[in-house]
């Protein structure tokens, strides 16, 4: 058996020391010394930060399914709320036949929304009070404001009225 085989056998099976020659012993000593050094140099001691970092990653991965679940529920809720909001808040614009006297009907509609008209009157803007504004002058202004439509209505044009509570 060669020297190298003996050393291999010794390392694998642990031959009794007596069976090794002096040269083999020296050889083996050199190898074992190198091993000891190798172990020293590759000895790894993980830091506390490293442990925290690894466990944090594991914890994060552990919570991922729950986070995804919460996210999915939030998405469904948002969809339901949005769908409900948009389906119940539709502004419908319909054409309406205002004959036989469309101009008068338009005028009445304008009058019926009195407070809104008052609030946008020039007098109010300049600081005038409700009492200071004469109903007749308001009616005159209303008439003037829709005057430009009179000819179109007579010519048989269709009028659309948008009514909104906003």
């Amino acid at each position, binding site marked *: 058996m060669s020297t190298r085989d003996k050393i*291999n056998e010794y390392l694998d099976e642990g031959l009794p020391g007596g069976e090794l020659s002096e040269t083999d012993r020296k*050889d083996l000593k050199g190898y074992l010394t190198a*091993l000891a050094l190798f172990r020293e140099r590759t*000895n790894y001691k993980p830091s506390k930060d490293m442990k925290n970092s*690894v466990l944090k990653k594991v914890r994060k991965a552990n919570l991922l399914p729950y986070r995804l679940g919460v996210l999915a529920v939030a998405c469904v809720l948002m969809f339901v709320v949005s769908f409900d909001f948009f389906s119940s808040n539709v502004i419908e614009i319909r054409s309406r036949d205002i004959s036989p006297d469309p101009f008068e009907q338009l005028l009445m509609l304008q009058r019926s929304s009195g407070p809104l008209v008052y609030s946008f009157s020039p007098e109010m803007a300049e600081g005038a009070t409700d009492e200071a504004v004469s109903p007749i002058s308001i009616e005159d202004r209303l008439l003037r404001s829709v005057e430009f439509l009179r000819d179109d209505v007579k010519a048989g044009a269709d009028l659309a009225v948008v009514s909104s509570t906003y």
Partner: protein
Amino acid sequence: MDEERLVKGLKKKQMWAYEVLYNEYAPRLGSVIKSYLGTDDVEDVLQEAFIKVYRNIKKFRGDSKLSTWLYRIAVNICKDIISKRAKKKEYLTDFQENDDYATFEPPASTNVFREVMDELSLEELMNVVEKLAEDDRLLIRLRDIDGMSYEDIARIIDKPVGTVKSRLHYARKRLKELLEEVGYGEHSR
């Protein structure tokens, strides 16, 4: 800690089990990774190994020991890194020669080290270990330092037992030759 109980805890994704696993195996795994790769990437590989354990623990059927399975995961990650290094090295050959990735940290100043330092210079010893191929370092680490069986090593590196034996034989021979080169062999002492 009973391995069966630990594996159950790991499969149930319980944090205590991962903490026990880390405390028990991180130093050993880290040492193997350091032996195989050098100092680079040890912590990255260790982190990746534990995340892989977390993701794949349900695939662990208990055919081998948990430690063997863990070593195998870590060694596979190291192999990927070595393969990437080889490609990078190939790419950089034209620009940079003698690009050595395996750089070991200075050894700890323990009694063993001081004893060894009486006989060999630090520089020579660093060269001896660095000159060994990565696979040789891994085999020597697993067998001669960690004392693993050939069967376990074969499972870890995914090679037949006979191949492991012959490769280890060669690795030991190579280490001895390198020691002789620096004057620490049978002929010089």
